[in-house]
């Protein structure tokens, strides 16, 4: 059965408490949140299987630190959506603001529209699929996981990148320090195929280019000092 909570009738604290308790109960319950009106910290800290649909646009840190839950935003998401996500799936039907999926450790962040700057900043294992474009400084210091972009990437993609994999179908305005284009090997095609399928993206893995770390900044070398 589906439960509905209205943000104009119920306080954020009560909505989050209800959702957090329902997730903890491991009952695979379904919730619909109406009238989010750009509120912050909605459906954050969920720790268990739960299906939450938010009917509208959200503010900062929606679905922050999510574990196992499935959160869908039927609108756009503000800064830091699904930040530090551990597992589960977060879907944004519209656009995502800056820092989408920041420091995420796991799970899938599926953005149907565009993501703005710093998408996947410092990501640590999360998979992010953006159906549109991403803004500047995306995947800055990204450590682990996969960032898939069907559209174009802005300036300084993957600056100071560690071991995260970046796949971009469109153009890249510029690459950040220590980020280079890399060969697309069969194992990458496999990873990408699976992610595109999971995200319901209409694209072929072969259309993408892969970017990764040149690993020149991994240990200090005086001849690379200008990259710092």
């Amino acid at each position, binding site marked *: 059965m589906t439960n509905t909570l209205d943000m104009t009738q119920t306080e954020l604290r009560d909505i989050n408490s209800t959702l957090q308790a329902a997730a903890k109960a491991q009952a695979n319950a379904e919730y619909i949140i109406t009238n989010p*009106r*750009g*509120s*912050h910290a909605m459906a954050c800290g969920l720790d268990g299987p739960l299906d939450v649909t938010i009917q*509208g*646009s959200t*503010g*900062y840190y929606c679905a922050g630190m999510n574990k196992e839950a499935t959160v869908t935003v039927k609108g*756009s998401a*503000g*800064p830091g959506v699904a930040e530090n996500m551990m597992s589960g799936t977060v879907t944004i039907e*519209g*656009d995502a*603001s*800056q820092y989408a999926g920041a420091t995420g450790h796991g799970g899938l962040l599926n953005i149907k529209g565009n993501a*703005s*700057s710093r998408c996947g900043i410092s990501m640590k294992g999360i998979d992010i699929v953006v159906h549109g474009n991403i*803004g*500047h400084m995306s995947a800055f210091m990204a450590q682990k996981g996969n960032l898939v972009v069907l559209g174009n990437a*802005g300036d300084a993609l993957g600056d100071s990148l560690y071991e995260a994999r970046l796949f971009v179908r469109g153009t890249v305005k510029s690459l950040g320090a220590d980020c280079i284009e890399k060969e697309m090997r069969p194992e990458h095609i496999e990873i990408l195929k699976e992610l595109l399928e999971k995200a319901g993206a209409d694209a072929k893995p072969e259309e993408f280019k892969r970017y990764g770390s040149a690993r020149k900044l991994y240990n200090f070398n005086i001849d690379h000092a200008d990259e710092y």
Partner: protein
Amino acid sequence: MCGIVGLFLKKDELRPKLGDMLTDMLITMTDRGPDSAGIAIYGDETGGIKITVQSDTPETAFADLDADLCAVIDGPVTIKSISTHAVLTVPAGSEKAAIAFLEDKGLRIMGSGESMEIYKEIGLPKDVAARFNLREMGGSHGIGHTRMATESAVTTMGAHPFSTADDQCLVHNGSLSNHNQMRRVLAKKGVFTRSENDTEVGAAYISSRIADGATLGEALEGTLKDLDGFFTFVTGTKNGFGVVRDPIACKPAVMAETDDYVAFASEYRAFADLPGIDAARVWEPEPATVYFWER
């Protein structure tokens, strides 16, 4: 550190609703700036120049002010006083003398221009809005600001918007890191600021560039090179408003456009009550890119 809102109406029939729409937007930004709030509203032009002044003792300061001013500048003067603020309308050309007289009387000049009026005070945005009846104000466009003071005092003069030339004003979210140096550079040119606030330096920089012959667009482009630090600026002019973010662009900014209006805010929340927002085009301004809307 702050919240910014801006609204530019495309249709004249919406003009009476400007204050109402802008007030709701302003109040949603209270968390970002609980210290003070302000609004610049571009309303009806009367053929004269409107000078907005502020006083902590309005009862005495505004009594007979129009008559006293009239005696000095030799022309018709009207006064509209609302709480701590008064808008004096003087004939074009007599504005300089009027401002000198008003400053001499110890009144604080908020701004002047053919259409711009500025209202700002310390306190929560909802209280500031109520004090000035912002909801009742009509106009073509307006910008508003809620302030969380960083390095200068919480005072009326430290509140935004800052106006440093006729019909021009600026609000800012962020923190400039070379404003002291720029203040000295501007002072050498004879451009002076009235507060210790970093944003006022930004406003003075833009006005000074325009006075030197730059277009608004060129002046905003100039901020990218000449001002250091983090900023999202919204600047108002008689005909519209402009937006620019620094190249790092960490401070939030979101815009919405419909057939009826262009809106700006620090957060999407501020748009929640705007008519037709669900169908609006909503996007974030790119870093180091100048945008403006003019009628």
